[in-house]
């Protein structure tokens, strides 16, 4: 590894430019592919405000919102995973490790069981995620000293509890509701109503976190070390926790609990790019968005007209590439 690639900002732009290019390609692909394939020239015409009516409807009203929603969701999950990993000083943490998706899932499934509509299910998921976040926040505070290990344990135990409740809800649900519930649990972009919440939250989070990049690098060396170097560790940790949780809650509300993106994307990038958060955070955002956009394109085209849960694709794409990178790394 060349020193220059890790220090100073010029060289940092190269991997980001590459990832941005990949993101554009993935978005283009997801607009072009589907029940009707649209050639590249026709796609450009549509994006210029011209082209056939059918193509315009397909691209602008169906595929573009869904592609953007997938991109935003993937970006949120990867960014939130990267933050959770620093917060818990554990490269194996992911956005769901503290039980957030469990809380969201229990609330969403309960709403589905009650026969509520899509908007209310999304609202319930958001409420469940926030409730889970507050419970873990309150309990990890506890009466004793606060440590990342304690937060992790509290979250993991909460997640296990939510898991049991999810199984219970599935067990008592009527058979005709089960497919919808299972798709929600595995993550499905078909629920995404509008891409703007995820995109906006992802952009705002990145803007908030980027100036903290170097501070996060120091925090990754341990709480005491960070304090000794002048970091106000406790407020920073709560900021991380709240922001990462909110990001996850918005992502889960949009698309159900899509697994693997939040764990794998930051981890994979670290294997290639080192652990400078000033690079890893924007890179996670781009790579997470790209991965989920591609996965969702596959999910709706592989066995069309039937759609697969996108969470299955992220895992099937992610597991081999992750294992390959891990195997190749020093």
């Amino acid at each position: 590894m060349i020193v220059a690639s890790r220090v100073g900002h010029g060289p940092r732009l190269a991997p980001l430019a590459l990832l941005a290019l990949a993101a554009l390609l993935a978005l283009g692909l997801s607009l072009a592919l589907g029940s009707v394939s649209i050639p590249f020239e026709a796609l450009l015409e549509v994006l210029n405000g011209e082209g056939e009516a059918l193509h315009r409807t397909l691209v602008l009203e169906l595929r573009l919102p869904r592609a953007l929603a997938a991109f935003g969701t993937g970006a949120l999950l990867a960014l939130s995973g990267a933050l959770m990993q620093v917060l818990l000083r554990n490269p194996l943490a992911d956005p769901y490790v503290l039980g957030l998706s469990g809380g969201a899932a229990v609330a969403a499934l309960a709403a589905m069981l009650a026969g509520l509509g899509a908007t209310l299910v999304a609202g319930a998921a958001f409420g469940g995620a926030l409730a889970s976040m507050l419970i873990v926040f309150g309990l990890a505070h506890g009466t004793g000293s606060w440590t990342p290990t304690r937060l992790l344990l509290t979250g993991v135990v909460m997640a296990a509890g939510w898991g049991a409740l999810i199984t219970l809800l599935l067990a008592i649900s009527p058979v005709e509701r089960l497919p919808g519930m299972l798709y929600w649990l595995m993550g499905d972009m078909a629920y995404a109503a509008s891409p703007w919440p995820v995109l906006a939250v992802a952009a705002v989070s990145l803007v908030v976190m980027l100036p903290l990049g170097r501070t996060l690098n120091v925090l990754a060396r341990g709480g005491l070390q960070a304090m000794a170097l002048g970091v106000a560790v406790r407020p920073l940790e709560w900021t991380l926790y709240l922001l990462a949780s909110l990001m996850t809650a918005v992502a889960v509300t949009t698309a159900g609990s899509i697994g693997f993106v939040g764990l794998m994307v930051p981890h994979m990038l670290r294997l290639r790019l080192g652990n400078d958060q000033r690079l890893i955070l924007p890179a996670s955002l781009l790579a997470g968005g790209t991965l989920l956009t591609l996965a969702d394109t596959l999910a709706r085209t592989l066995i069309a007209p039937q759609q697969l849960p996108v969470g299955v694709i992220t895992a099937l794409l992610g597991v081999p590439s992750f294992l390959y990178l891990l195997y190749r790394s020093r």
Partner: protein
Amino acid sequence: MDALETHRLVIDIPGRAAGRPLDLRVSPGERWGVLGPNGAGKTTLLHTLAGLRAPRAGEVRLAGLPLARLGRRAVARRLGMVFQTSHDDFPATVLETALIGRHPFLSPWHQEGPEDLALAEAALARLDLTHLADRELSTLSGGERQRVSLATVLTQSPQTWLADEPTNHLDLHHQVAIMDLLAEQAAQGSGVMMCLHDLNLAARWCDHLLLLYPDGEACWGPAEVMLVPTVLERLYGQPLTTAMVDGAPVFVPRR
């Protein structure tokens, strides 16, 4: 010049009586050694002096101000801490690790510049680490890692050094090199306080000693006054043989 002072300081070790409150003054140029058996509170004392944990009573002042009044960042610009253990859960190179010593001096929007890089590289050179600059921390030996920790604080170049067993894991030559480095920092006007397990390093390189007993008792003063064999034997509960070598006492545990 900043001095590190404690005023009626009682460190907080759960379940231990208060013992003797500490009224210390580590002045610029002084080299303090903290001696005591395992569990006597040496690390806790250093962490308390660095403001990383709250004392049970009393206060710590740096340049005449209580640590809390100064704020974390201002403290980090004046006081550096060498930890006994380091975390490397995430990948990081040796140079990156030295460079974080500049963190207290940079605003959030600032990138490390050429001057910061030069300071880090000089610190690596001083600790014989230049050839390892691009290596991952996880591939280093214990002693090399210990030198990286010292390089980070050297990059920070604080007025007050707190070092928790700085010679841990080091071979003989590097033990001497590190003690020379700390002595050199003191000669340039830093106050240095270090926890040591090696009586002989303390006898040769420290001009003041603080003896910490497991029950919270403590005594301190100039090294030549404190290096009394009977006192040290009581401190460690270990009979010692004393010899004079090169005009300095050498302590050897008796079997």
